């Protein structure tokens, strides 16, 4: 029977828990100096990471994260059936060029900063459909590559707006298996593109908050769960303003998020790190999950996590043409089984 794994409108419940076998996170210096610094596998101090360009450095960070994740479970490239990965750069050059060096069947994904949970949910679908035994997901971002593509040259003397966010330099990887126990993917709620008319590219949190709200609401409606089902609900990179907006809108919808709601972009930095509204980028939720949340799940601090990566689907072209910012959020439930 088709659709039997689909619950409600947008949620897919996997027929068995899909264990996350291993994760890895490689981050930049600023992230390493942040409050979650101790949880990351590797902190690189040089934004070039020994390469000739920042783009090459981002690609290398992805490969590095993949190697660390494989090394933790003594697996090799040959054990991987799929790789789902993405980043923020035009034509996904960080991920595509990383995959160039990996003999693994590869799907490149663009979901802006929502890529990590987009990849996780697709991995779940591939594994649950018995198309694979081990799937690799990655996503990455890099402050300098994102700045020069989306905003200004890094040395231009501009003042940032208080709502601006700081793109996380980091790559996260996770390897998901088809059966077993541990921290497991149990279901995913795939988001719709939501556009509430925000045009300010310096205020992504406000643009993305409605998409996150929509997906979280849909997840609760589809599953019949309430916020207190989870130990922690984490959005990807809404930052301070976006988080406050999402929390307010969800509470108006009858979901009290005050106790267990957090945002990866808010917790990866401290306010004194000159990041304004917080962190952002594909690497934000990827490294915070791969570093902090995954180890918290393993050591029992948390048992049930809803990870909701949020993406602003804009380009410099659309911004210059005055378009508003369409946004998306995908939710993945990760539970200790």
């Amino acid at each position, binding site marked *: 029977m088709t659709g039997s794994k689909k619950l409600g409108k947008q949620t897919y419940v996997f027929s068995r828990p899909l264990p996350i076998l291993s994760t890895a996170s490689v981050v930049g210096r600023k992230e390493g100096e942040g409050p979650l610094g101790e949880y990351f596998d590797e902190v690189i101090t040089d934004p070039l990471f020994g390469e*000739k*360009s920042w783009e090459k450095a981002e690609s290398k960070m992805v490969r590095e994260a993949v190697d660390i994740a494989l090394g933790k479970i003594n697996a090799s490239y040959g054990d991987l059936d799929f790789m789902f990965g993405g980043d923020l750069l035009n034509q996904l050059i960080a991920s595509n060029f990383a995959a160039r060096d990996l003999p693994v069947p590869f799907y490149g994904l663009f979901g802006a900063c929502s890529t990590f949970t987009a990849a996780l949910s697709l991995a779940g679908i591939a594994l649950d459909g018995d198309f694979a035994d081990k799937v690799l997901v990655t996503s990455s971002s890099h402050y300098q590559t994102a700045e*020069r593509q989306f905003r*200004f*040259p*890094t*040395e*231009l*003397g*501009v*003042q*940032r*707006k*208080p*709502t601006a966010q700081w793109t996380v330099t980091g790559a996260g990887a996770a390897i998901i298996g088809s059966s077993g126990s541990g921290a497991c993917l149990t279901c995913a709620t795939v988001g719709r593109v939501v*556009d*509430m*008319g*925000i045009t300010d590219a310096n*205020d992504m949190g*406000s643009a993305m908050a*409605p998409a996150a709200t929509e997906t979280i609401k849909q997840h609760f409606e589809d599953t019949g769960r309430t916020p207190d089902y989870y130990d922690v609900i984490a959005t990807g990179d809404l930052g*301070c*303003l976006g988080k*406050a*907006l999402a929390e*307010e*809108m969800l509470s108006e919808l009858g979901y009290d998020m005050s106790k267990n709601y957090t945002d990866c972009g808010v917790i990866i930095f401290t306010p004194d790190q*000159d990041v304004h*509204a917080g962190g952002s980028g594909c690497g934000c939720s990827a490294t915070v999950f791969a570093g902090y949340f995954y180890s918290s799940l393993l050591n029992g601090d948390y048992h049930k996590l809803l990870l909701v990566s949020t993406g602003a689907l804009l380009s410099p072209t659309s911004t210059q043409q005055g378009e*508003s910012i369409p946004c998306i959020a995908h939710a993945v439930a990760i539970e200790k089984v």
Partner: protein
Amino acid sequence: MATKEKTIDQEQYKWRVQRKKPKPAVLRNTIMAFLVGGLICTLGQGVLVFFQSLGMSMKEAAGPTASVMVFLGAFLTGLGVYDDIGKVAGAGSVVPITGFANSMVSPAMEFKREGFVTGVGARMFQVAGPVLVYSTVTSIVIGIVYWLTRLWEARL
């Protein structure tokens, strides 16, 4: 959005955001812009006075002064200092001609990896280009008006 018209939801959301949005520290920013911009101009005045002391008129000294300030802006950008000044000073370091130099050096340096012609050469005018275009066009229009006015006055 299929149409550009905002829905009621979008309109409401705009208000919700406006209410929560942190405002820039306008007073502090303006004071900093005033102080840093003023200091850069005071420095420029020093350079101007120096060239005048060499026997140049104020008008003759303007070009060399601008060149020295441009050099300073370009050099500080190369050292990676100008963007740090900009974070604090805002318009105070954007509006002086040192900021114009910064707007040329920062993209040229940044896009060096994309080649000397398509990177450095083309990107140098990313911000400076529009400035030249609009200052030239505006001035030519003003020049035409001035020339016509003079013609008309001569006929009277």
